[in-house]
């Protein structure tokens, strides 16, 4: 079973390796960030958080009736998501969504949006 996922991963990796190799061979090409160094944005948090924008607007800037959350802090967002997850807050659909994430994932999502707001307000 793990083998199957490893094989999916290796397909992407071969391409990634090929591309990074070719990048190094390209004169004037941008240098790739070495793997393992600290990054500004956690890629897991990012990929989890991109989902939210479909209903709450890009970066959480809502143009509809759904609440926008751009500018809210990570701790505010984590608290709200945990409340939705644990049925501590009324919702039509948010509770159904929040239950799909582990507490760790909720933290990552909250930190992504919290960080985003902070970054842009500088």
């Amino acid at each position, binding site marked *: 079973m793990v083998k199957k996922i490893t094989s*999916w991963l290796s397909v992407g990796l071969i391409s990634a390796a090929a591309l990074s*190799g070719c990048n190094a061979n390209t004169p004037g*090409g941008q240098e790739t960030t070495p793997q393992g160094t600290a990054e500004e944005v956690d890629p897991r948090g990012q990929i989890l958080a991109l989902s939210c924008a479909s209903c*709450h607007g890009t970066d959480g800037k809502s143009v509809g009736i759904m609440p926008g959350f751009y500018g809210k802090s990570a701790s505010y967002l984590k608290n709200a998501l945990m409340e939705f997850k644990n049925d501590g807050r009324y919702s039509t*659909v948010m509770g159904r969504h929040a239950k799909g994430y582990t507490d760790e994932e909720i933290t990552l999502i909250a930190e992504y949006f919290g960080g985003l707001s902070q970054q842009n307000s500088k």
Partner: protein
Amino acid sequence: MSQKFTRRDFSKLFIAGAAGSTLGVFGGATPLLANQKRVVVIGGGFGGASAAKYIRKLDSSISVTLVEPAATFYTCPFSNWVMGGLKEINDIAQTYDVLKSAYGVEVIHDEAVEIDAANHSVKLKGGKELKYDRLVASPGIDFNYDAIEGYSEAAANSQMPHGYKAGPQTELLTKQLQEMKDGDNVVICPPGNPFRCPPGPYERASLIANYLKKNKPGSKVIILDAKEKFSKQGLFTKGWKKLYPGLIDWRAGSAGGKVTAVDPSAMTVQTSSGAVKGGVVNVIPPQRAGKIAAEAGLTDASGWCPVNPITFESTIHPGIHVIGDACIAGAMPKSGFAASSQGKVTAASIVRLLQGKVPAPPSLVNTCYSLVGPGYGISVAAVYKLTSDGIVSIKGAGGLTPMDADDDQLSEEATYARGWYNNVAQDIWG
């Protein structure tokens, strides 16, 4: 999925993968013709436009060219609202101005006619050839007209529109409904699974019934279904009973619903239980991946495109990512929202790959609202993750509007449905 295989293990796999990739297979590198990484996106719908916008948003050093024939894209979501008289066609029109001006996506209004997977290039109808480092194909669906005797593309454009690609046929169906004689029936023929927007035909029946109730009280809706059951069935049936008693007659495939042939000139539909005549006949044929996907050899025997569920890269042609209705995405339905979710995951993956990094584990969502009546909404939601069985919906999360939802909740869902459209459209094209 093995019970022993936890998400922690999964993350470890990705880390192991990252370490492994430094040992990389550099010999297989494809030479680039320019310094800037180039992504070409085919199709400006929910999947393609999302991918184009988000690649640029996440890494503006990557050039993105979006190929879409139409300058205005009409969304299938909310096209039923147009048919029911609740929205105008302009309300579901999206353009590419913001993608161009705010995100720097190059938009070419032309049709992609050929993909050369070996040489990483796409030929356009106008003669142009585009080279790419990675290609995103979001071609949507193609219709299998041959599956129904007597039906054809010409019939769909005139007497019996499918209205399953929004635009001229949405307007045609709307006009046919308005011109229909009171007392005539509207016949809707949904296909078997899998098809685009599983609750679509039933929301359509609901909003047409809402229109008939007010404007043609002698008419009703007959649904001749290829299937034995359908999406959100319990919720729809409950809503129909309440709002449109006796107005919607749904017939399962085994109960005379299975369509064997149509006669567009006589406006009749043949079933195992005899012919059914309609004043308006909406035939939704079986579907397959958009034409270019099949022509490029990206489809398998099912007619849809198998993909790596981490990156949505084709398992047939490396370097080409297939997203949206055209791809086989495990438990995910063929919905605009799902296509957008896949577009964003693919964008993030492509950015990582082009930076020589390992993609993050995918996390996907779907949220689909259906309107049963103007103030009566229902929804289905799901969060998806990757397991060894592919993309599965997370147990204990998601699901439907509760069957015992009260009028206030149903009214709130209808309000949120409108908000859903505003934000999903903003997140993709705005």
